[in-house]
């Protein structure tokens, strides 16, 4: 296939979807208030953009995401490494950790609202929780999975501890950890939008929920599409970073 066609093939399925949506809205016999045609959704998007409303919602959501993800991922990284290195930590915290990580973050939202109220804290905590567990698991497995033969080489060459960490342990454990971070970021984003749906005074989720109550389905659709696009962009950015960091692997 020519390169240009391969590049364009990315857009084939979204275009087909929009087309189907267009046709269904026009000829499907659904009420226009429920199945808003794509051009009206685009109209709403432009209006929200111009009024600056959209930027504010997005900025609020993304800053919560950044704060919660950084805290959760950092904590997960430290906890995961501690669990991999210390049998004591594993013995004392392991079982509880594995039970807690089975609880969907969304199921914890009601409880977190009771504990932390409906303000910022609760959303950041939910995001941090959603980030913590995948990263902790990946870090623990990643560090435990470092092949012993690499440490033997380090031993033979008597690498000092800082070099052992920087030149051997970190890069060896990096692939699963970077993947864990990427998965955590995706999950954190989804949970955040869900949390905003339930309780917030701003953010993408809140915009969706408010518009639903006001029967502005066009704005609801703007929110839904944007949620998908933001999630995709974050994930894709991380994939690029992953490829750059792990270019020493023979599998791309």
């Amino acid at each position: 296939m020519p390169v240009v066609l391969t590049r364009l093939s990315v857009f084939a399925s979204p275009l087909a979807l929009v087309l189907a949506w267009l046709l269904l809205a026009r000829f499907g016999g659904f009420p226009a208030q429920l199945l808003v045609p794509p051009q009206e959704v685009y109209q709403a998007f432009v209006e929200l953009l111009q009024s600056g409303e959209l930027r504010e919602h997005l900025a609020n959501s993304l800053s919560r995401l950044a704060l919660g993800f950084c805290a959760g991922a950092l904590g997960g990284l430290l906890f995961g490494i501690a669990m991999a290195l210390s049998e004591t930590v594993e013995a004392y915290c392991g079982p509880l950790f594995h039970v807690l990580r089975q609880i969907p973050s969304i199921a914890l939202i009601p409880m977190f609202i009771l504990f932390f109220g409906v303000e910022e804290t609760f959303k950041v905590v939910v995001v941090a929780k959603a980030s913590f567990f995948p990263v902790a698991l990946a870090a623990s497995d990643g560090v435990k999975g470092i092949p012993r033969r690499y440490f033997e080489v380090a031993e033979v060459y008597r690498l000092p501890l800082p070099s052992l960490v920087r030149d051997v342990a970190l890069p060896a454990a990096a692939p699963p950890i970077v993947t864990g971070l990427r998965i955590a970021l995706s999950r954190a984003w989804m949970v955040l939008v869900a949390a905003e749906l339930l309780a917030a005074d701003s953010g993408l989720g809140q915009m969706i929920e408010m518009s639903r109550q006001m029967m502005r389905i066009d704005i609801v659709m703007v929110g839904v599409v944007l949620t998908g696009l933001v999630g995709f962009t974050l994930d894709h950015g991380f994939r690029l970073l992953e490829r750059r960091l792990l270019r020493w692997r023979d599998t791309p």
Partner: protein
Amino acid sequence: MTAILNPRLVGAELPQPGALAIRGLNKAYRIDGRPLPVLQGIDLQVLPGEFVSIVGTSGCGKSSLLRLIVGLEREYDGQILLDGEPVRGPRLDCGLVFQDHRLFPWKTVWDNVALALKHQRLSRREKAERVDEHLALVGLTGFERAYPHQLSGGMAQRAAIARALITRPKVLLLDEPFGALDALTRIRLQAELQRIWAQQRSTMIMVTHDVEEALYLGDRVIVMEPRPGRIRHEVQVDLPHPRERNAPRLQNLRDELLRELTGD
């Protein structure tokens, strides 16, 4: 102060380092809780600057013996003395070329080799020169920036040899270092190894499956037998270095060794 301690100035008064003494060495691995003896009653004296080749069938414990000498295996019975001191763990003056190359896949060839110089007090430029020099020695010039997965098996093994040589250890253990190489490269690297050995006057112990290689390089060839691993036979190769590859004496010894290895 260095004048007094410098062995070159003191001359023969200080013994040259690199002596290895193994006495009554037994080693067993545990498999499923039951001990599996892999080495039994190994006695071996290696003089400073000696080149010892070890041959033996697969699984007779050659790699295990090298791992014990370098200090990676710490559970054993008997004595392993390096310059009179019991081996308690890896030391900088004892190097090992592993049977598998064990380059770090996340480091380029150049960085892999340079990592071995962590302990040397060298300027950045001296380090770079030494790495380049050793990569040239094993014929890897032009592949400095390559990652291990971009190398062939033989090239990776050569990089691993460069990594071990660059630290100039007093005792160098080599576990089938030329196993993955073609005949021509193998012959060239054998000659290089011999040159380095003669120049650095270090002790070398090399495991190989190639009887001719063992005889060509070794002052002595140790023949091991399996289950459990023991030393069965020893051949002194009383020819001066550098040697003629097809010297009649080597041919005779080769026939003798092959008989020893094949006929029970």
